């Protein structure tokens, strides 16, 4: 065993990058679930965002236009889910799973002919003096812009949910849609907007993979990250800042696994691959027991269909 080659600074910097797609998808899904909707289609929206963003970036030559296209693509796909579950009252779990399966196939179709194409590069942000701070510089200030965008979104969502009127309306809709409806809030409109926000974030997370992290297009390239993001929302007990910490934890596990291998330390990859889910199950068990239960509980109306009665 040889730990001498482990540089914690380098590891920390790498995990921020590895965590970004998970974080983007998770923060979107968090808002969706806080509005009382369970969308299991995150993986499908991510992969659709990955391919739409990739083709748009290759066509226009601009990675940022690609990002915007990915957001639109993810939101458009999520709108199918929104119409099905909110207007047509279809089952949310089944619709979400269908969305994932559809997204995986649809993205493979869209991506025909784009395998092996190199997308335009996204420049790293030059933060001047900040990048040169010892220790913190390499960890925090030498990334591509999307890493900071993801953190900014988390902070904005936290602020919005906690301190703004519209954020509170969204939470009210998620906690008790009948009460919210009685107070005159438009439950369906709030939820459909939340679903589209979730789709846009997932799409951005997917495009982060295909445009920045890899950067290439391959079928099925999200490889289960959407599911990790779903687990993460539960793990974070629907709190934005906890979601960020969780994303860095899960991202850290991914990075650590490869680094351990590279250092010649043998840990079967399968154990680390299943650890995010194991941790989530553990958190669920803790949450559902004892005093912790009340403060960590899921939104009251999560996954329940809303019928505007009377």
């Amino acid at each position, binding site marked *: 065993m040889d730990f001498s080659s482990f540089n914690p600074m380098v590891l920390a910097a*790498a995990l921020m990058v590895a965590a970004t797609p998970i974080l983007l998808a998770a923060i979107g899904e968090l808002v969706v679930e806080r509005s009382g909707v369970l969308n299991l289609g995150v993986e499908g929206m991510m992969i659709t965002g990955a391919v739409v963003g990739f083709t748009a970036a290759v066509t226009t030559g601009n990675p940022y236009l690609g990002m915007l296209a990915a957001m639109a693509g993810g939101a458009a796909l999520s709108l199918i889910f929104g119409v099905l579950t909110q207007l047509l009252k279809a089952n949310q779990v089944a619709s979400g799973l269908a969305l994932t399966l559809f997204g995986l196939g649809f993205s493979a179709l869209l991506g025909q002919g784009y*395998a092996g194409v190199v997308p335009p590069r996204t420049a790293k942000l030059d933060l001047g003096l900040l990048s040169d701070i010892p220790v913190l510089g390499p960890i925090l200030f030498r990334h591509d812009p999307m890493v900071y965008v993801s953190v900014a979104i988390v902070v904005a969502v936290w602020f919005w949910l906690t301190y703004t009127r519209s954020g509170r309306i969204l939470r009210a809709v998620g906690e008790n849609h009948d009460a919210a409806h009685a107070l005159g809030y438009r439950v369906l409109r709030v939820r459909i907007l939340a679903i589209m926000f979730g789709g846009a974030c997932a799409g951005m997370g997917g495009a982060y993979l295909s445009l920045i*992290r*890899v950067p290439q297009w391959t079928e099925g390239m999200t490889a289960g990250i959407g599911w990790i993001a779903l687990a993460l929302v539960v793990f974070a007990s629907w709190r934005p800042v906890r979601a960020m910490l969780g994303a860095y934890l899960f991202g850290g596990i991914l990075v650590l696994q490869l680094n351990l291998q590279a250092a010649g330390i043998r840990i079967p990859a399968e154990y680390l691959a299943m650890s995010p889910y194991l941790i989530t199950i553990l958190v669920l068990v803790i949450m559902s027991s004892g005093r912790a239960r009340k403060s960590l509980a899921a939104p009251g109306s999560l996954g329940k269909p809303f019928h505007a009665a009377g």
Partner: protein
Amino acid sequence: MKRRTLIATSALALGLSALGGAAMAQDDPLKVGFIYIGPPGDFGWTYAHDQARLAAQEHFGDAVETSYVENVPEGPDAERILTQMALSGTDMIFATSFGYGPAVNAVAERFPDVAFEHATGYQQESPNVSLYNARFYEGRAVIGHIAGRMTETDTIGYIASFPIPEVIMGINSAYLHARAVNPDVRFRVVWAYSWFDPAQEAAAAEALIDQGADILMQHTDSTAPLQVAQDRGALAFGQASDMTEFAPDVHLTAIIDNWTPYYIERIQARLDGEWEAQNVWHGIPEDEVTFAPFNDRIPDDVQAEAEEMIESIRTGEYHPFTGPINRQDGSAWLEDGEVAPDSDLLGMNFYVEGMSGEIPE
């Protein structure tokens, strides 16, 4: 019942067209099918096979009609697609991945008049299954030598796919030749458990560079590790095809899989009605393993040494696995001057002495 009749009829039709042979070739082109594990646009393994298919098509013109199916998973899907190809009148099928073995043999038994060519396989249960493989370890010996001479951190990163003999052989060959010129050299190996997963390969490349590797080698097919190397300023070798355009500054050379001579030879044999099953393992001498142009960053003397090694392998003077070589546990594998028998190589499941780490199970 109906289906069976269909199979019988098409088998008969195939038989007839095979009997017709060269005479019919003018108006009725020989149909040659390929099944690929990945997309032809991977710029790696599948790309190399597809380039050879295109070259063969060009060579034979109207006498041959080639087609391919991409992204065929190993397993039941492969059997279904092979059956479909055979049923639709294909005369010759190239199955270009190791894991197609069981499917190829199962389908070959049902279609005795179709000639099957299986790359890198080992099962030959019918007289119409031919096997072909390339001695990529010869190429890896050369890049191992270059890497050993050029590394400054004495650390080479190796992105491996699956722990199978083909891959282990490559690691050992590269390591032995790097160590021969640099006794301090260390190999760090990351297993991606995939032949083609750009995300995983890129992450593995990042991890290896983070762990101090300044030169990367890969036994996976995407160009993602090279793009990472280009970004991070590490040196790297391409895989299966010339990947220079993906990393112009750091791409030292690439081991190129050149299947064209073999495909042309075998399709010609089928056209002439002289095709017979065989089991061949070509390499540098047959030009099946070649190299991308050397990058100017390789010093002239190292380039000369590499050329010299390629020549000595070509003439048969030198075999990359020539003793004395010990296994990782210190036990003797090859005596002084002994050359590794092919059977040892094809079943290789151990690292050579000096390699650190273990091969996963």
